[in-house]
């Protein structure tokens, strides 16, 4: 592909990526939000994070089927406990990486 083609592609991708990130913030931050919406939105982060991580741990992505033997899941147990005890983001990332690395070396 040539430079103008790349520019067209990435610019279009940029627009459709930016607008969903921008519009709700731009619009809602200058509105008085009704209490029900605030209550509902406060549950969104936990729901999104759970929906993001659980398939990574439990699903074979190539066949799109349930797989309870993934190393990701095995490592997640001590990583989860470490995160719960320490509440340290950097520490949790490092512990998860080291455990996953050790497991892959076995």
């Amino acid at each position, binding site marked *: 592909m040539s430079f103008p083609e790349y520019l067209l*592609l990435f610019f279009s991708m940029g627009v459709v*990526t930016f607008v969903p990130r921008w519009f709700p*913030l731009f619009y809602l931050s200058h509105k008085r939000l009704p209490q029900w919406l605030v209550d509902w939105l406060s*549950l969104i*982060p936990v*729901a999104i994070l759970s*929906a993001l*991580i659980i398939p990574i741990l439990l699903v074979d992505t190539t066949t*799109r089927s349930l797989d309870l033997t993934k190393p990701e899941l095995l490592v*997640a147990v001590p990583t989860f406990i470490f995160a719960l005890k320490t509440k340290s983001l950097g520490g949790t990332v490092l512990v998860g990486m080291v455990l996953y690395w050790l497991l892959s070396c076995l």
Partner: protein
Amino acid sequence: MSKDGPVERGTKQQLRAGAAAAWPICLGYFPIGLALGVLASQAGLPWWAVALMSILVFAGSAQFICVAMLASGAAIWSIVLTTLMVNLRHALMSSALAIYFKKVDRRFLTIFAYGITDESFALNMARFRDGDWDRWRALVVNQLSNFVWILSTVTGTLVGQFIPQGAFGIDYALPGMFICLLIFQLQGRIYVLTGIMAAGISIAWYLLIPGDSYIVGASILAATLGYFIKRRARRKNELS
């Protein structure tokens, strides 16, 4: 600047606090950015195209999909449409962030919105809720992550093939981060319950419906169920 309240303590402190919070994200982004760069160069993208993409798009999963689709010769419009579908989830995150950006000037919001990713969103939300956070620190987290992302994707196109696959457990950086960010959100029984429901729904949705709609679908459904359960519990308490 003074309207941000007591957290505000000079530019240098804000930069330092933002950087101190952002380093786990940067650590997580680096290997993924490298991997993206390697794949992109294998698919025939020059380094400047990868730089252009990381600057204009800044959305890891969409960029991976874009590279895969380019390699299989997909049309531009279908790549753009897929990007839109994959990134729609950020509209939910942007809505949730709005609570902490009341009456903030719109130029700031526009710059800030560019850097809303899964990771920066979850980190900033947790910090805002704990209270020791302001919009400038949040912006530092976004922009620093973006800088590392651009740097690592471009580096990947240049040197990535020399790094052995799976070295140092780098593939687990993002899952590890998600696990901890999820823990930060468990602030009470209703949050735990919503998380469990989202887990169950997302798995079922993922297995039954092709595509990436499971993220948006499961989070909306679980948050709505959680909301009604909370409301019912509250009403019961008021009655008794």
